[in-house]
């Protein structure tokens, strides 16, 4: 059983006004195959958590730990974390001119596995994932994220999730900006990855719409850089009805 364990995580960023503390002691434990939804108001630090786990250089970890099966991730480079089994589906994936989707995916798969995938089975996997995500074949020859619509970018992120087969994935507002059809397609992709690989998911979202399609085992409410409350799926329903107001009174939101 794989476990991703986040303990007392403190993270800050450098801003023009000086150092700003964003995460103030996050504790989360995600088991294999589990889905944890992180919900919370804007500015509560949800995306910072995602990027800090992945190792983005902009975020300075000032305390705590992130362990994957007992191994400290915070000491590792971004690519080492990915090779250990972490994946981040990004909210705003960048364009990489001149690098085709097919070249990018094959390079990533080769880096993760330590050897190039057998061509026949790789093409088969790629085809079936793209078909399931309703992605046209021509997509493979396009440059990574270049000229992609918002929905295409998100589907491309989930395509990677399916093909790269990480142990744990952080989905950073993957549902934002999607219409309901695209949301269903993307959700199906996440569910397929869970079924086939026992993926553990940290689903960061601003809305609970996606939770109708990707069922969370746990819901954590994130306020002012830490988990303010946690519960089962029923907590999401309550948040839908009540909003975040009761958490914000008295909370130190900058």
């Amino acid at each position, binding site marked *: 059983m794989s476990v991703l364990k986040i303990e007392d995580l403190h993270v800050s960023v450098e801003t023009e006004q000086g150092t700003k503390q964003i995460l103030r002691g996050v504790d989360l434990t995600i088991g294999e195959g589990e889905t944890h939804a992180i919900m919370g108001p804007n500015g509560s630090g949800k995306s910072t958590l995602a990027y800090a786990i992945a190792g983005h250089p902009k975020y300075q970890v000032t305390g705590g730990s992130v362990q994957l099966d007992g191994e400290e991730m915070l000491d590792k480079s971004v*690519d080492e974390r990915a090779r250990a089994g972490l994946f981040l589906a990004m909210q705003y994936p960048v364009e990489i001119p001149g690098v085709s989707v097919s070249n*990018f995916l094959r390079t990533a798969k080769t880096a993760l596995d330590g050897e190039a995938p057998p061509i026949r089975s790789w093409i088969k996997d790629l085809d079936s994932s793209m078909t399931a995500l309703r992605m046209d074949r021509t997509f493979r020859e396009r440059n990574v994220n270049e000229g992609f619509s918002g929905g295409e970018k998100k589907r491309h992120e989930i395509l990677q999730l399916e093909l790269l087969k990480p142990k744990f994935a952080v989905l950073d507002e993957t549902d934002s900006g999607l219409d309901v059809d695209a949301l269903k397609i993307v959700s199906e992709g996440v569910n397929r990855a869970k079924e086939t690989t026992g993926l553990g998911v940290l689903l960061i979202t601003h809305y609970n719409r996606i939770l109708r399609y990707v069922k969370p085992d746990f819901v954590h409410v994130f306020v002012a850089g830490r988990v303010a409350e946690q519960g089962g799926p029923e907590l999401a329903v309550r948040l839908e009805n009540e909003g975040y107001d009761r958490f914000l009174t008295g909370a130190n939101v900058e």
Partner: protein
Amino acid sequence: MALASPAFVPVQTRSERLASTSVTDFPAVTGLEFEWKFIPLARVKHLTEGALDGSPTAFTYSESAGTAVDWIEPSAPVVGTAGVPEDRAAANAWAAVEKVLHISVTGEDAAELVVRRDRFGSTPRAAHVVIEAAPNSKGVVILEHHGSANLTENVEIVVGDNAQLTVVTVQEWDDEALHLSSHFARVGRDANLRHVIVSLGGSVVRVNPSVHLVSQGASIDSFGLYFADAGQYFEQRPYIDHQAANTRSRVNYKGALQGKGAHTVWVGDVLIGPHADGTDSYEQNRNLVLSEGTRADSIPNLEIETGNIQGAGHASSTGRFDDEQLFYLQSRGISEEEARRLVVRGFLAEIINEIGSPALEERLSAAVEAELVQAEAVRASALVQ
């Protein structure tokens, strides 16, 4: 009353710049002139004024159907029909050559012609090439440059009506090579010239193409790719002269710079003349800076003398590595070194893919790859220190 002597007035429009085949019409070069402002003049000044060996230099080429290669006299009528020197080094070469290398494309679907020029040696030399595409012809001419050189030359390109010609000039000179090359192109009615400059090797390499779209429907696709390492100076100044109506130009140059003293210059001039109604033009230059201590000059100029055009735009950017691109690739397990290579290769691939010769594209991809491996080694050793 005598007229006061006119004050010095800088050239206002590109078409009014001095052009002459006589070296004495050009004042001695000081380095203050805009044409000579960036170049390390000490390394090349002798090519602007000194004696030059203008005897024919041996070369090799592939026999290709629909093309012919021979030496002609400088007095031949075709010489000078595509353009006339606009700087002193080009004029110095013009006067010195004893024979002109004449490449003709006559086939309606001619085979690719590769001319390998690798025997210039270190003596200061002059050369002159005329590439002539007959009306309705179609072909690809590749000039490959290797070995040592101390060369100033003129390259004329005459594209007949309705012809489609691709000219690629590849500079993979030895480290000490000096090469000043003025290209002049005259593109006829409904004809298209695809002009590609690739500079990867040499000490000082300057290739300045002046392209005249003289008849309606003429078009130019002008591409450039350069990768300057420590101490290398690469310059290119594409000038697109829209003279006729409904002409089209696309200019796209991309460069990478790596290592102390690597310096590149791009000056893109587009002139849309008073009779060039319906012109559609766009020029851009992008530079990727891979290390400290490099310099990329990028200057787009656009002159428009008619109000009735379809479009005219320009873009220029010089930037460091995009850390977000690195983060994205690394977050997929790709090592930093490989991610950097992927990004630079992708950046330059846009130009390589436009060359239109699969064999050359493959070879240049490999050459760029070798530059990248070398660049990574330099970067890694710099990090260790």
